[in-house]
């Protein structure tokens, strides 16, 4: 009951945010949080299979660049380019991961890491992709004659993407597919012995997560209007993992969302300069790991008395 009320309240705030917030900066931060949530949920999906991906940023980049080029070079509509760039990203994921996964989770981890380095280097050193200067003037999305220029309109697009992503992941997790993923995550040998094709299911999870990374890459390219390779550095993949961890690794959908929201807003409250941010993040992460290893969302389980007191207080 309380959970539903909290979730509903959260939803209403998200829906009305541009009208409550009063300034575009907060809206921009929430847009970023939406993007990171989607990337983080992809990480969580592979983690459900006990795979660790360090490649989310790489596939995000592939989505962003494909979309920009599809629109600017081939003159495609943004709404066509968005799912297409997701597919391109998924195709790359399929090629890389279908090889990597044959050698097991450790190679998957290192291949994803190496791949995201390669993507950034290739984008940065190839003239066609604009080099380290990146691609400028990526056109904004349009609906008919209306250009989604304002942060508010872009925010609603981000929110619908997030919502769509949540729905798809939720449907997957609730289906026998998600059950098989949980089985693999819980006990690989037993899962195999029960007839689950571990290789195929793991590959499926990795490719689906990269599809959404590509889609959100397309969104990023067309709302920022400027993409540079360094945005998609390996640090970004690490941050994405951090968001999932801080929110709660065992909360495959809500964890990355909460983690991303907290971590996007935290530096604002700390009023820190960009140079100090990694230090704050590091300290925060260590504190989380020591005191609430299950992430922010595990607080009610970990401190039931605290949660109980909170409930009584509300009454």
């Amino acid at each position: 009951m309380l959970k539903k009320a909290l979730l509903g309240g959260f939803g209403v705030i998200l829906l009305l945010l541009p009208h409550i917030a009063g300034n575009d900066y907060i809206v921009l931060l929430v847009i970023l949080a939406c993007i990171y949530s989607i990337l983080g949920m992809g990480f969580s999906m592979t983690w459900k299979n006990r795979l660790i991906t360090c490649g989310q940023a790489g596939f995000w980049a592939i989505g962003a660049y494909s979309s920009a080029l599809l629109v600017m070079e081939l003159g495609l509509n943004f709404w066509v380019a968005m799912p297409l760039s997701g597919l391109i990203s998924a195709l790359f994921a399929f090629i890389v991961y279908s090889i990597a996964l044959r050698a097991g989770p450790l190679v998957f981890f290192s291949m994803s890491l190496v791949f995201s380095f390669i993507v950034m280097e290739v984008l940065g050193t190839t003239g066609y992709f604009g080099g380290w200067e990146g691609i400028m003037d990526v056109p904004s999305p349009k609906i008919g004659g209306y250009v989604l220029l304002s942060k508010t309109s872009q925010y609603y697009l981000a929110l619908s993407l997030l919502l769509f992503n949540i729905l798809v992941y939720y449907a997957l997790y609730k289906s026998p597919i998600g059950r098989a993923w949980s089985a693999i995550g819980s006990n690989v040998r037993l899962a195999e012995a029960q007839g689950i094709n571990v290789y195929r299911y793991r590959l499926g999870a990795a490719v689906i997560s990269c599809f959404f990374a590509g889609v959100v890459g397309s969104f990023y390219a067309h709302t920022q209007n400027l993409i540079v390779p360094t945005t998609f550095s390996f640090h970004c993949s690490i941050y994405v993992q951090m968001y999932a961890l801080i929110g709660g690794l065992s909360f495959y959908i809500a964890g990355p969302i909460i983690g991303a929201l907290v971590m996007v807003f935290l530096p604002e409250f700390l009023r820190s300069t960009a140079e100090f941010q990694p230090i704050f993040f590091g300290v925060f992460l260590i504190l989380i790991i020591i005191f609430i290893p299950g992430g922010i969302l595990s607080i009610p389980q970990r401190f039931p008395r605290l949660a109980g007191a909170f409930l009584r207080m509300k009454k």
Partner: protein
Amino acid sequence: MALLELKKVSKNFDGLTAVNKVDIDIEEGEIVGVIGPNGAGKSTLFNVINGFFAPSQGEILFKGEQIGGLRPDQIAGKGIARAFQQSTLFMEATAFENVYTGFHLSYKTGLIKQFLHTASIRREQKEIKKKSMEILEFMGLGALHNEVAKNLPHGHQRILCMCIALAAEPKLLLLDEPVTGMNPSEKQTCKELIRQLRDVWGITVAIVEHDMKVVMNLCDRIVVLNYGQKIAEGLPEEIKNNKSVIAFYLGSGGLQDAA
């Protein structure tokens, strides 16, 4: 034709021969025991049959079809399920969920329909939920279906292992030390259950077990392994009186215990 035929199956690990040219036939409807001292290669043999290890040499035929070298999930699909030596469970899930998850092979509906939660998959899931409860009740865990696996006592965990294996709806069930760590009354129950699996469900069973009392009492036929080789095979009575088995394994004291 036997249900499972092993023909000169060997498994080497870097020069160490864990299983050495073993021939075993398992007929449909039998309960076959595999015994032998520690390190005799019994579990390795099961791992080879079940696909965790590919055989180094030899053929494994299941229903006349070559299965040696297939992946474990393919072999499970052919109808061979196994319960593990240690309590290998989905520890964080409830007993019911453990069995329900084990039914992976039963889904006939395609992946896209699974994702879209169509009526057919929901019907199928309902059916499987019913079957999961049936298995738990048959094995005497019905009342504990909501208990998280890691909180179950050891004896019940062992039974739950078997329940999960049954969820794969096997023709042949491999049980790796099913009664280890059980108290005498649990052993008795477990033995009866295994017998019923054969009599009621028509499942052929192969058991690796150290408990001679259970093996002698339960099995139709016994295979004895030592240093990876088959040293004897026969009815329980024959094995009890086999000189080389006594010398290698049972010992004179062991015989009296078993009798």
